[in-house]
């Protein structure tokens, strides 16, 4: 018959009271557990965003630094997402690349169309092409390499998006948009280009990269492998032709996640674009002359949209500052959450100890005569005190277990109710061409609240501590009761 048994019997003696007290304490402890759990989850998600953002910016910056000498030349809008065509020319628009010689009524055949500033034969393709850029004749811009100073190399590439066409009404006109499944990127696979200029992805996760002379093979992105359900060594069908998967790359944030790479001539014949390209990538001899070369290109061919690495860097910096602002906002919101959480935990702690304090004070008062009896039959102050302390601690320990049970069921609800939500939507980078990319894609970081073993241990510890704290004064009062007075108390 020890102190522990007596404590248990005393608690179970008044079942209804014990139950109510345990529920009240349990909720207060559940709040105490749920709030830190919520804050931890918020912190982790914010931390995840920071890491993601940081690494993306670093990678992009590294790639752009490497390609500072690079100048992209395209015709058409530098807008990715919607491709526009002049509606009065009644051409298919959007991402869809219609073969110029397809005879589909587009009215554009190589060399046939001029934009009014140049002679016929200057343009090929018309107002369509991947990413809203316009196809152009492969040989038309040979003069860039031959006549301009400071040009190291000119790399013609073809980019064609494939997917499902959808018609869309906008301002009384019909547009066609494309839901992109994958983007074909044709790169001239000569050793002079692939060995010297950064035209291919660098992060190969499986198989090998494309090499000079490759044909009939493709390099897929990780996303592509899911779409084609293929891995290295498999054969896949693209537009009814078969290709072998030679490697898989991981998109570093500079490339679009849906782009697959192949030989330019393969891409041209596959998409019925023999002789046509969408982008001329000009590499200047050094980063010092990039701006001059870009100006010269624009002077020579005013119809070209010219984007330099410098401009891409500026765009990146502006994006970076946008993201930093978003991150600062997230951090501010997180710190607000933390201070709210702190206040709420303080309230919960105070509530827990006050509940224990009042319940134990009531118990001590109720049992004054018992205390007198115990002292009369020889109990020391310390034994009396420990008896009541133990009762308080046990009560809140049971409540702690109940609180953990409540928290494990309702932690997300409780922390959702009590914490201001952290803005979790932060844009991520997407798209191969920084110059032509909108930071549109957003990813939602989900808040996963979980009760870790550490948190459970801390909760039980807190329950014991607060139980002891709350019953300290009542127990001390009990132990100081003068037996003669207690005996008179009825």
């Amino acid at each position, binding site marked *: *018959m*020890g102190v522990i048994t*007596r404590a248990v*019997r*005393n608690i179970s*003696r008044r079942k209804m009271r014990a139950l109510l007290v345990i529920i009240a304490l349990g909720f207060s402890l559940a709040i105490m557990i749920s709030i830190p759990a919520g804050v931890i989850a918020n912190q982790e998600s914010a931390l995840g965003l920071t890491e993601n953002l940081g690494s993306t910016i670093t990678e992009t910056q590294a790639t752009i630094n490497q390609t500072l000498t690079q100048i992209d030349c395209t015709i058409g809008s530098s807008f990715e997402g919607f491709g526009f065509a002049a509606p009065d020319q009644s051409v298919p628009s959007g991402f869809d690349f219609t073969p110029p010689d397809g005879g589909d009524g587009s009215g554009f055949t190589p060399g046939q169309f001029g934009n009014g500033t140049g002679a016929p034969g200057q343009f090929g393709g018309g107002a369509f092409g991947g990413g809203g850029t316009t196809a152009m004749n492969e040989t038309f811009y040979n003069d860039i390499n031959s006549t301009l100073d400071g040009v190291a190399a000119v790399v013609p590439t073809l980019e064609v998006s494939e997917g499902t066409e959808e018609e869309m009404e906008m301002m009384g006109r019909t547009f066609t948009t494309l839901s992109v499944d994958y983007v074909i990127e044709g790169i001239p696979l000569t050793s002079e280009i692939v060995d010297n200029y950064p035209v291919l992805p660098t992060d190969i996760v499986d198989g090998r990269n494309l090499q000079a002379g490759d044909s009939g093979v493709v390099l897929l992105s990780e996303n592509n492998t899911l779409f084609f359900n293929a891995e290295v060594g498999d054969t896949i069908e693209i537009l009814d032709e078969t290709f072998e998967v030679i490697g898989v790359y991981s998109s570093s944030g500079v490339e679009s996640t849906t782009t697959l790479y192949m030989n330019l001539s393969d891409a041209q014949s596959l998409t019925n674009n023999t002789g046509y390209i969408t982008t001329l990538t000009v590499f200047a001899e050094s980063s010092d002359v990039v701006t001059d070369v870009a100006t010269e290109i624009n002077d020579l061919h005013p119809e070209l949209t010219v984007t330099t690495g410098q401009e891409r860097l500026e765009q990146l910096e502006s994006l970076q500052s946008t993201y930093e602002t978003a991150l600062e906002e997230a951090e501010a919101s997180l710190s607000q959450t933390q201070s709210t959480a702190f206040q709420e935990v303080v309230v919960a702690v105070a509530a827990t100890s006050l509940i224990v304090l009042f319940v134990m004070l009531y118990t001590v008062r109720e049992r004054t*005569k*018992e205390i*007198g*009896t*115990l*002292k*009369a*039959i*020889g*109990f*020391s*102050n310390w*034994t009396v005190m420990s008896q009541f302390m133990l009762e308080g601690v046990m009560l809140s320990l049971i409540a702690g277990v109940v609180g953990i049970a409540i928290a494990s069921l309702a932690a997300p609800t409780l922390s959702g109710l009590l914490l201001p939500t952290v803005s979790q939507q932060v844009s991520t980078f997407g798209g191969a061409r920084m110059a032509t990319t909108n930071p549109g894609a957003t990813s939602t970081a989900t808040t996963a609240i979980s009760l870790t073993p550490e948190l459970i241990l801390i909760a039980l510890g807190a329950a014991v501590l607060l139980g002891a704290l709350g019953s300290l004064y009542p127990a001390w009062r009990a132990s100081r009761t*003068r*037996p*003669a007075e207690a*005996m008179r108390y009825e």
Partner: protein
Amino acid sequence: MSKPLLTLEKVSKTYMLGKREVPALSNLDLQVNKGEFVSIMGPSGSGKTTLLNMLGCLDKPTSGTLLLSDVDVTKMPEKDLYKIRLNKIGFVFQTFNLLPYLNARENVELPMEGKFTSKTGRKQRASELLGMVGLSGRERHRPQRLSAGEQQRVSIARALANDPAIILADEPTGNLDSKNKYEIVKLLANLNINQGTTIIMVTHDGQVAAQTERMLFLSDGKITREKQGRHVAKKKYTCPHCEGKIAPGDERCPSCKKKL
């Protein structure tokens, strides 16, 4: 005659009722020898319970000294007094004061906890004591399932748990009917005769007091009268070793010198 077990010298106790001083005991002198069965009588407010609280070290006198086995307990700090109560004194209360959430045996075991007796030792002693007060087979009954007389027996067994020098009983028959009253007084008298336990009992029942050996009458905080009770005649003062005559309070037999 051996030294008295209890000696009170000029003991006074004054309570403060607001700013008014209320004397409960005034310059009270008393000696109680070992093995005596004493009753204290008096009207309400005469200081009976106050006196008993002093004797039981539950309260301290305002002035005077109280020697218990030659130790001046009035000079003892409160934190040490529990040891006296634990080892020297057994209490029997008018309202029994049993813990309702413990059964009879557990109630009897309670004072033994402070002496760190082994668990089985405690159980065994508690069962023996309950047997002695006539409650064998009732060990596992909680107080609410026992009659008032039975509860008082449990209370007496609990008072005996640590083999105290004195049993202090505060109106032990006050809440009992006449049959049980008689049983309890008989039990106390038998304890006194058979075990030699010193008993001091407060009562306002003349019939009950008459069963004791020495009747003290208290009035206005002083002992005003003393009378012999019928118990004297019942008490056979004989040595268990040589059957020679002994006096109450003797530690050794005057004839055979053996320890009693």
